[in-house]
C-alpha cells in the first residue's frame, strides 16, 4: 500500500514538475524557412515574440531571401533580399492565426540596356501576410504554416509609369521553436 502511495506521489510530482518545466520551456523564438512569401522563392527567417498577453502576441521577424534566375536556360545569380516584418498573432493552443506586414529590400545583379548600365539594382517590396500556423508552444518543436502574402511593389518595369503593382502570392512555412 505504501509502495502504491509512493508511486502515485511520485507520478503526481513528476506531472507537476513536467508541467512547471513546460511552462518554463515555452518558446518565444522561432527559426523557419518560408517557401514563397517575402523571399519570393525561399527565405530563412528568425522570429521573436516581443509582447504576449492572454492569447494575443506581437512578434518581429527578420530574414534573408533568395530567388534564382534562369540565365539562358541555366540557373544563375538571382535576387537576394533582406526581410524585416511584424506580425500580430492570435493563439488557439496549437493553432495560431497571424496577420502582419513585411518589407523586403531586394538586390539583383542586373544587366542594363548597354554594358554602361550594368549595375546592382535595389528594389523594395511590401508583403502583407495573413496565415495559419500549427505550432506547439514548447521549445524544440517543429511547426508548419501556410498563408496568403501578396507582393506590392512600386518600381521596376512598368507600362505607362503605372509603377504600383499588386501580385497575389502565397507561402508555406516549416520551422523550429528555439
Amino acid at each position, binding site marked *: 500500500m505504501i509502495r502504491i502511495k509512493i508511486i502515485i506521489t511520485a507520478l503526481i510530482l513528476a506531472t507537476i514538475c513536467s508541467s512547471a518545466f513546460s511552462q518554463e520551456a515555452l518558446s518565444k523564438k522561432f527559426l523557419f524557412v518560408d517557401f514563397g512569401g517575402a523571399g*519570393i522563392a525561399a527565405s530563412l527567417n528568425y522570429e521573436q515574440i*516581443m*509582447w504576449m498577453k492572454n492569447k494575443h502576441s*506581437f512578434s518581429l521577424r527578420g530574414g534573408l531571401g533568395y*530567388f*534564382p*534566375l*534562369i*540565365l*539562358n*536556360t541555366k540557373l*544563375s545569380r*538571382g*535576387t537576394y533580399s533582406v526581410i*524585416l516584418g*511584424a506580425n500580430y498573432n492570435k493563439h488557439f493552443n496549437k493553432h495560431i492565426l497571424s496577420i502582419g*506586414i513585411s*518589407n523586403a*529590400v*531586394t538586390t*539583383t545583379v*542586373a*544587366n*542594363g*540596356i*548597354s*554594358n554602361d*548600365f550594368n*549595375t546592382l*539594382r*535595389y*528594389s*523594395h*517590396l*511590401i508583403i502583407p501576410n495573413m496565415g495559419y500556423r500549427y505550432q506547439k508552444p514548447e521549445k524544440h518543436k517543429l511547426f508548419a504554416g501556410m498563408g496568403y502574402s501578396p*507582393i*506590392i*511593389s*512600386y*518600381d*521596376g*518595369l*512598368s*507600362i*505607362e*509609369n503605372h*509603377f504600383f*503593382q499588386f*501580385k*497575389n*502570392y502565397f507561402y508555406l512555412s516549416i520551422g523550429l521553436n528555439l
Partner: protein
Amino acid sequence: MKHLKTFKLSLVAMLFLFFSCEKSEMNEIEFLLNHSYTESYTINEAHIQHLPQALHNYLEAVQLVGKNNSNSIKLNYYGNFKLNEKANWASMVAVTYVTNEPLSRNWIGEIDSPMGKMTGLDYYYNGVGKLDIRIAPSIPFMFSDGYELSVSELIAFLGELVYNPSACLNNNIQWEEVSDYAVKATLEDAGLCVSGIFYFDENYLITRFESNDRYFGDTKEQLPWIVYVDNYKVFSEIKIPTTFRAVWIKPEGEYEYINATITGLLFDVKNL
C-alpha cells in the same frame, strides 16, 4: 506603448523606402529616348525616289510624304501571347519604344500567365539584345542574351518598320526589289546584319514581313518568322496596320505566338 511607437516609426520608414526606390530600367529607356537625335525635315519625293518602286508606293500610300521625319516611336497594343508552344493564350498589354538613331528597341509587356501577372522586357541597343522576364516588376526570373538573341531583337526592329515608316529612310537599311510587290531590307547595326522581305498588296500596303534570320526561342536554330499585318487605319496622321500576328514556321506547321491590336502610336517621343 513603446512597441506601438516603434511600429509606427517602422511603418513610416517602410513607406518612405517603398516610394523612393529608383525606377532604374525606365530611366534607361527614357535616357535613350532623350539622346536619340536626327535633323528634322519634311519628307518629300526626293527623299524616297531612290527606293524600290513598291516601297516608294508604300510610303506614299501610308501618307508619309509631306510629313516630318520621326526619330522615335511609342507603340501601344493589347492582345494575346503564348509563353511556349504548349501554353494556352494569355492576355497581354505591351508598349514598344523604338529610336532610329541610335538604333534601339525596348518592348515592355505585361502577361497574365498561369503564374500570375508577369512583366517582360525585350531590349536591343548597340548590337546587344536581351530578354528579361520578371515574376514581379523588379524580380527577374528568366534572363537571356547572346548573339542569337541580339540578331533576333534586331529583326524585330526591322519587322516594326510598318509602325515606324520614317526609319525606312535610315542609311543603315539597304533596299532591294524582289518583285513588283516585294522588297528585301538588309539592316546593319553594330556589327550585326539581318534581312527580311516585305510583301505588299495591290494598294501597296504591307501585308506581311518574312525573315529567315531569326533564332527560335532560346535555341541556335533559325526558323522562318512571319509577321502578318492588317486593318490599316490612320494613327498620328500615318496609315498603319492596327492588327498583327507573328508566327514561326516549324517543320510540323505554323506556330502563332502573338496576336495584337494597336491602341496608340506616337512619333518623336522624348518621354515614357
